[in-house]
C-alpha cells in the first residue's frame, strides 16, 4: 500500500481538536477560531482527496501513523464533504448559536467524525463513532427533557462496542497478526453472526431505521438544530455498512441484506407517510432526512452497482441539501422568534425572498428535481432498488413523491400565503448567510448539470462494494 505524501488525516483530526481547545479555554473570537480550524481541516481533506484521485483510486496509508489511518475513494469524499459542511454551519450559524461551548463541541464532533472516516483500525473507528455522539448525550447539545435521543445514541454506541469486542476476541483467539486492522480483517467473518447482528443494531439505531426511528424526530424537535444536522449528515451508519459490514461479513450479508433492504424501504415509506400530517417544521425536516437516509441504506443493500453508486451520491445530496434546509430553518426561527408549525400560513417570502428560494432549491434537490444532483442519485437509486426488489422497490419513488409533497407543504406554510399579523421587521439573508447558501445552491445545481463527475468520483468505491456483494450473491 502506497503512502500519502503528508499525514493529512492526522492533521485533519488534530487541527479541529486544537481549535476546540482554543474555543473552550479562550472564550473570545470563538467563531473566528472555529472557522479557521474547520478551514484547516477542510484544506487537509481537499489535498488528501486530490492525492487519492491522482493515485488512481488506490488505498493510501498515512505516513508515521502506526497504521491508524488510510484513505481511499470511499472515505476521501466523505472527509471533504463533512469538513466543508462543518465550515458552512460554523459560518452560517446565527450569533445566538455561537459560543465557546457550542463551537468547541462542533469542532470535537468534526474531529471525531473525520477520525472515524479515516480510521484503518476498528478501535479508532469505534472511538470516533462514540466521541462524535458524546456532546449529544452528555452536553452541551442535549435534548431538554426528551430521553429517546440519548437512549438511541447510547444503544448505538453500546452495540458497536459489543461488536468490536466480539470481533477482537474472535480475531485474537484465531491468532490474527493484526486483530484491529480493518484491512487485515477483510473477509474473515470474525465474530460471525453475533458481531454482524451487533453491527447492524448499531447502524439501525444510529441511522434511525424502523423501529429505532423515533429518536431522530425527538432530537430535531428538542435539540440544537444545526449541530443535530451536522451529526446526522455524517452518515456514519451507511459508512460503516460500506467500510466494515460488507467487506468483513460477506456471508452474513448475503442472507440478511434482502431483509434489511426491505426494512430500509419500509422506513423510507413510514417516515414519508408520517411527514404528510406532521405540523412541527423541525419534525417534518427530520422525517424527510430519515426517509432519504433510509433510501441510502436501501441502495447500499440492493447489491447492484446502480443502487450502490446512487446511495453514495445520494449521501452527498442529502448532506448538502439538508444542511441548506436546516440552516434556513434556523435562520428563520431566529428572525421569527420561535419554532415554526405548518398549521397556518406565515407569508414570509415577502420579507425573506432569498431565504425562501434557498429553501426551495435545497428541498427540490433533496427530492430529485432535474437540474440538481438529487435527480441523478434518485434515478440511480430507483433503478438499483427496482432491479433488486421488483415487488417493493416501487416504495422508494412513492416515498420520494410523498416527501416532495410534505416539503412543498412546509415551504408554502412558511413562506407563502397571507402575511401573518405577528411578523414584524424580518430581514432577508445577510451577506454572510447569503454567500454560504449561494455556494450550497451553486454546488447542487452545478453538480446536477454535470453529474458524471460526481458519479465518477464515487465509481471506484461503489465498484469495490458491489464487487464484494455481487460475488457473494452469485
Amino acid at each position: 500500500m502506497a503512502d500519502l505524501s503528508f499525514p493529512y488525516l492526522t492533521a485533519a483530526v488534530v487541527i479541529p481538536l486544537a481549535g476546540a481547545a482554543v474555543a473552550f479555554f479562550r472564550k473570545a473570537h470563538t467563531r473566528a477560531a472555529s472557522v479557521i480550524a474547520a478551514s484547516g481541516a477542510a484544506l487537509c481533506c481537499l489535498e488528501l482527496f486530490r492525492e487519492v484521485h491522482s493515485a488512481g483510486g488506490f488505498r493510501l496509508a498515512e505516513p508515521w501513523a502506526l497504521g491508524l489511518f488510510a484513505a481511499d475513494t470511499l472515505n476521501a469524499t466523505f472527509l471533504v464533504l463533512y469538513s466543508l459542511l462543518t465550515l458552512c454551519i460554523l459560518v452560517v450559524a446565527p450569533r445566538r448559536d455561537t459560543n465557546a461551548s457550542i463551537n468547541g463541541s462542533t469542532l470535537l464532533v468534526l474531529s471525531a467524525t473525520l477520525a472515524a472516516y479515516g480510521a484503518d483500525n476498528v478501535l479508532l473507528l469505534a472511538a470516533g463513532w462514540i466521541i462524535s455522539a458524546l456532546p449529544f448525550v452528555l452536553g452541551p447539545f442535549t435534548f431538554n427533557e426528551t430521553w429517546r435521543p440519548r437512549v438511541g445514541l447510547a444503544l448505538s454506541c453500546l452495540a458497536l462496542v459489543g461488536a468490536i469486542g466480539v470481533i477482537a476476541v474472535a480475531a485474537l483467539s484465531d491468532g490474527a497478526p493484526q486483530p484491529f486492522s480493518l484491512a487485515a480483517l477483510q473477509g474473515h467473518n470474525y465474530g460471525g453472526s453475533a458481531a454482524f447482528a451487533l453491527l447492524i443494531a448499531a447502524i439501525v439505531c444510529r441511522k434511525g431505521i424502523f423501529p429505532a426511528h423515533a429518536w431522530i424526530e425527538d432530537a430535531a424537535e428538542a435539540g440544537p438544530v444545526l449541530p443535530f444536522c451536522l451529526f446526522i449528515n455524517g452518515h456514519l451508519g451507511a459508512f460503516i455498512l460500506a467500510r466494515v459490514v460488507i467487506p468483513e461479513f460477506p456471508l452474513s450479508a448475503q442472507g440478511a441484506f434482502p431483509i434489511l433492504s426491505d426494512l430500509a424501504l419500509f422506513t423510507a415509506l413510514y417516515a414519508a407517510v408520517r411527514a404528510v400530517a406532521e405540523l412541527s417544521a423541525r419534525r417534518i425536516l427530520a422525517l424527510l432526512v430519515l426517509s432519504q437516509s433510509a433510501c441510502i441504506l436501501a441502495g447500499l443493500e440492493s447489491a447492484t452497482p446502480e443502487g450502490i453508486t446512487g446511495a453514495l451520491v445520494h449521501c452527498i445530496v442529502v448532506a448538502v441539501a439538508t444542511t441548506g434546509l436546516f440552516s434556513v430553518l434556523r435562520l428563520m426561527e431566529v428572525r421569527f422568534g420561535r419554532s415554526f408549525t405548518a398549521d397556518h400560513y406565515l407569508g414570509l417570502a415577502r420579507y425573506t425572498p432569498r431565504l425562501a428560494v434557498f429553501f426551495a432549491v435545497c428541498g427540490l434537490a433533496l427530492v430529485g428535481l432535474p437540474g440538481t444532483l438529487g435527480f441523478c442519485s434518485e434515478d440511480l437509486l430507483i433503478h438499483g432498488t427496482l432491479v433488486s426488489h421488483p415487488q417493493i422497490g416501487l416504495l422508494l419513488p412513492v416515498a420520494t413523491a410523498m416527501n416532495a409533497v410534505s416539503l412543498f407543504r412546509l415551504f408554502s406554510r412558511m413562506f407563502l400565503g397571507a402575511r401573518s399579523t405577528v411578523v414584524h421587521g424580518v430581514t432577508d439573508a445577510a451577506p454572510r448567510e447569503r454567500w454560504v447558501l449561494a455556494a450550497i445552491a451553486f454546488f447542487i445545481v452545478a453538480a446536477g448539470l454535470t453529474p458524471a463527475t460526481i458519479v465518477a468520483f464515487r465509481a471506484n468505491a461503489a465498484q469495490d462494494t458491489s464487487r464484494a456483494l455481487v460475488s457473494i450473491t452469485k
Partner: protein
Amino acid sequence: MTLQQWILLSVVVTPGAVFLGFSFLWLLGWEAPERFLSRITGLVYSLATTAVAWLIWCVAAGGDHPVVVSLGNWFAVHEYEFPLVLLGDHLSLPFLALTVVLVGVIGQFSATYLHRDPGFARFFILLHLFAFGSMLIFAAGSFDLIIGGWELVGITSVLLISFFHFRSGPVENALRVFIVYRACDLGLITAAFVLHHVGHVSSFANGMPPVAGGLATVVGLLLLLSAAGKSAQVPFSGWLPRAMEGPTPSSAIFYGAISVHAGAYLLLRAQPIILGSPLASSAVMFTGLMTAVLGTIVGRASSDAKTSLAYASLAQVGVIFLEIGAGLTWLPVMHILGHAMVRTLQFLRAPSTLHDFHQVHAAAGGQLQQTGKHLETIFPPPLRLWLYRLAIDRGHLDTLLERLIIQPLLRLSLVLGRFDRLGLSNRTPAVIRQIEPLAKQGVING
C-alpha cells in the same frame, strides 16, 4: 456536429441558460429591470423561432431525415446509461415551433400585463424554465430525458399557480396540483425503468424499438397514467380549475397550449408501443372519451371565463387522446397545433370577455342571439338536473380523490404519529435522570 445539430442544441439549451443566469444574479442581489428582461425574452424567442423554422425547412427538404444530437451519456454506471440524445423529427419540430412562438408571444403580452407587478422578474424567470422543460420533453431522444423536462414543467406550473402567493387560495391549489403531478409522474418513471431493464430500450432516436405483448400493455398503461395526470384527463381532471389561480398569461400557455398537450405528445411519441397492446390503446381511447364528455358537461356549468375555457380545452384534449388511441398520427398533431393557438388567444382575451361581448353586442345592433342551449333541451328535466349536479361538483372527481386517497392517508399519518409518540412524555425515565447531573455539569465543555 453539423450546423443543424448545433442549432437544435442551442434552441433547447438557451432558455435553460437564461434561467440559470438570471436566477443566480438575483440570488446574489441583482434585480434585472423590467425592460431588460422583456427585451432579452423577445430576442431569445425571436431567434429561436427563426432557427426552428429553418430546421423544419431543412428536415422537410432533406426527405424527413431527422436531426439527431448525441451528446454521449449524462452519466453511466455499469450497464445503466442515461443517454443525452436530442431528436428533431417530424413529430418534435412542430411542437418545438409551437413552444418558441407561444413563449415569445406570452413574453411580449406579459411585459404589459404584469408591468410593475412585484413578481414581474419571477414570472419571466419561471417562463424561461418552463420553455426549457417543454423543449426538453419535445426534443428528447430518450424517456429518461423526457422525465427531466416533465418534472421541470410540473414544478414551474406549480410555482406559477402560487404566483399570487400573498393569498392562501392559490397556494392551497398549487399544493393539490403538485400532489397529482407527483403521483402521476410515478407512471413515467416506472415505464422508463421497465423499458430499460425489461425491454432494453434506452433511446428512441433511431426509431421506437418494437415492443409488444404484456410489456407493451404495462408500459402503455404506465405512460397513460402520466399523460392523464399532466393533461388533466379523467380521473385527474380536478386539478385543472384549481390551476386557474395563476396569472392569465401562464394559464394560457400552460393549460391552453403547451403543458396540457404534453401528455398527448408523450402518447404520440410512444404510439408504436401503445398500439402494440389492444388493452392500452383501448384505455387511451376510453380515457379520452370520458374526459371529452366530462369536459363538455362541466364546462357548460362553469361560472367563470377561465374555468369554462379550461374545461373546453379538456374536452378537446380528450378528443385528441381518442384520436391517438385510434392509431391516427397526423390528425392529432394538427389538432394539437390548431387547438393550442386558438385556446391561447381565448385565454389571453379572457380578462376582456365582457368588453368583447359588449363590442360584439353593439356591432350586432343589440340583437345578439343566445347560443349553446341546444344540447340541454334534448335531455329530460330529471336527467338535466342530475347532469347539472355532476357538473357543479366537476364530476365528483375531487371528492372521490379526497375520500379515497387523501383522507385515509392523513388518518394513517396521524395514527403513526400517535404511535411514534407512545412512551414520549416530559418525564424523563429514572435511568436518564441518573446521568442528568453529568450533562448539567457539562462533562464535555468542562
